């Protein structure tokens, strides 16, 4: 099932981390800068997304589901025990 080589598996954690971090940052920026103007909703999280839900609700659900999906990917494809670095610098 795990077709990655050990080096690719070691890169998986930082790759997934930055994917999620950038998504989270985009969500926060959208809430702060693109949703309100003079206190009134103008776009960003206030925009309709699908099924009658706003982008704010959809993005919130997506960030929660997305965290689990990335975690599962890492659990299935991440480094094996003998490949995990100690990172202790000892």
């Amino acid at each position, binding site marked *: 099932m795990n077709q990655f080589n050990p080096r690719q598996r070691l890169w998986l954690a930082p790759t997934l981390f930055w994917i999620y971090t950038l998504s989270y940052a985009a969500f926060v920026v959208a809430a702060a800068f693109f949703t309100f103007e003079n206190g009134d909703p103008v776009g960003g999280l206030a925009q309709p997304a699908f099924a009658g839900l706003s982008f704010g609700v959809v993005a919130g659900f997506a960030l929660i*589901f997305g965290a689990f999906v990335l975690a599962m990917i890492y659990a299935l494809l991440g480094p094996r025990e003998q490949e995990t670095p100690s*990172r202790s610098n000892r």
Partner: protein
Amino acid sequence: MIYQTSTLAIIVFAAFVGLVLALSFWLASRAKSASGYFAAHGQVGWFVNGIAFAGDYLSAASFLGICGMIAFFGYDGFLYSIGYLAGWIVALFVIAEPIKKLGKYTLADALNAKFNSRGIKLIAAITTLVISLFYLVPQMVGAGALVKPLLGLPHWAGVMMVGATVTVIVATGGMVSTTWVQFIKGTLLVIVCAFVVVLLLQRGFSLPASPIESTEVQTISKGPSGTIVNGEPLSLENQLDSGLRAKHGLGFGSVAELPNGVNSTGPLGPLLYIETFSKSTITTWRKGADANGATTYTPVPRSGQDLLLPGSSPTFQSVRSDGIFAKLDFFSLMLALFLGTASLPHILIRYYTVKDAVAARKSTVVGIGAIGLFYILTLYLGIGAMTSGSLDPTDSNMSAPLLARTFGNGTFAVISAVAFTTVLGTVSGLILAGAGAVAHDLMKDYWGMNLSDRQQVRAAKFAAIGLGVAAIFLGVFFEKMNVTFLVGWAFNVAASANLPALVMLLYWKRTTKAGIISAMAVGLVSSLAWILASADTLEKVFGFSAADAATSALVPFSQPAIVTVPLGFVVLILVSLFTSKSPTTAE
């Protein structure tokens, strides 16, 4: 407020507490060594540990605080759900596996793994204690809020009950019993909340029976003759607890208008439930004051669409402002939620209870699954509480249990007992983390006391008792604060004090012990000082008016993480560069 007790609720509550205590005494024999007491011998299975993560993490703030915040302010509470869950990504991808390889019992063990420094032990123990105490406050406040409707006891009695029960749990079985209490709690919490959400979806939305009566301004004042509600002495009939007032058609928190002019929607699917809410008009309650100084609760109709946007609550109102400092306050809190999880000592010590790094990873994935599911449920619970005529407008923390009461006393009894177990699980973890810091880091390693394995465990048990007493005092003192707000502070302090040191220790080879000590000290002191000098603290702790707090505050916004976390990184890098020639410098 006055609450009517339910015999069923008392029986269920007593059964839960009895089960937890019996479990602790039964498991006590497995926690006689330091390894057993602090880390459950590192033999906890990854699935049990993952659910225990959920039990440890889903605190009173998550259950009572977030549901309450959504019930009062809509989407703002969900922002906490998103931020809290996102923090687990940092834990999983950055911290989990290396910390498992470095540590033994405590956060200090990991930070000190390559330095053998008494200074690191001291500062790590101090940050652990400070963060744990910060985090303890909202849990104890939540406990006090729960026993009022459940057992008809005052706030302080609930705080004392939790303090005493948890002290017994930690003092008997240490990490072994704490793990199982958290596992049971995590399982029950997710299942029971899912059950209530199913009931909510089945019920759908409906307009209240007496919409006019439920939209009158309410006033409460306190004087020498006691609490006066709407001009009359407080009684069961006139108080603002909707569960009782609903009998008189005076429920709080209701739908004013549904889409297409219907009176009731009938059962709804999960997405249709949110969509229907967003197209409805909701009667919310705004707190204020009248000319005589009495507290007023004024009904304010708001569109569901607006309630599903951020910025309705005092905590997040800055997001609707155009001011740069207001935006920074919002960014700072979201940053603290993102970075704080992986810096919480009571979460980090759970990585020592599994056998290896892969088990640590798997347990984190299980934790993310359980915690994520719960946080999705919080949106439904909060919206349900907001629209079911069950709110107590004087106490947001009671929203979820009062919502459960609309489905009958049995549901109320179970969810209140689960909520109480929720507090027990989290407080157990916090007190255990604090006890480890005192007995293992301070007494044994910093002060160099020659403690045998059993003496170390005994010292930790005495420390647990001391922390339990401290938690009781703090829980009584901070009674009136929203528990989610308080946890936000704990996340700010944890992220500022611990995260720079943890990350740089793991990923920068030139990190020195002086760098770690400096970064932790600066992060801790700067974040605490910032919080103390903020407008939020002046208003909510010291009782300033909002206007006075804004003018008297010494810092431009209230959440410190966006300043103090980078400050910690800068201090660590600079000090490490200056001290890189010392004998303990990493190669």
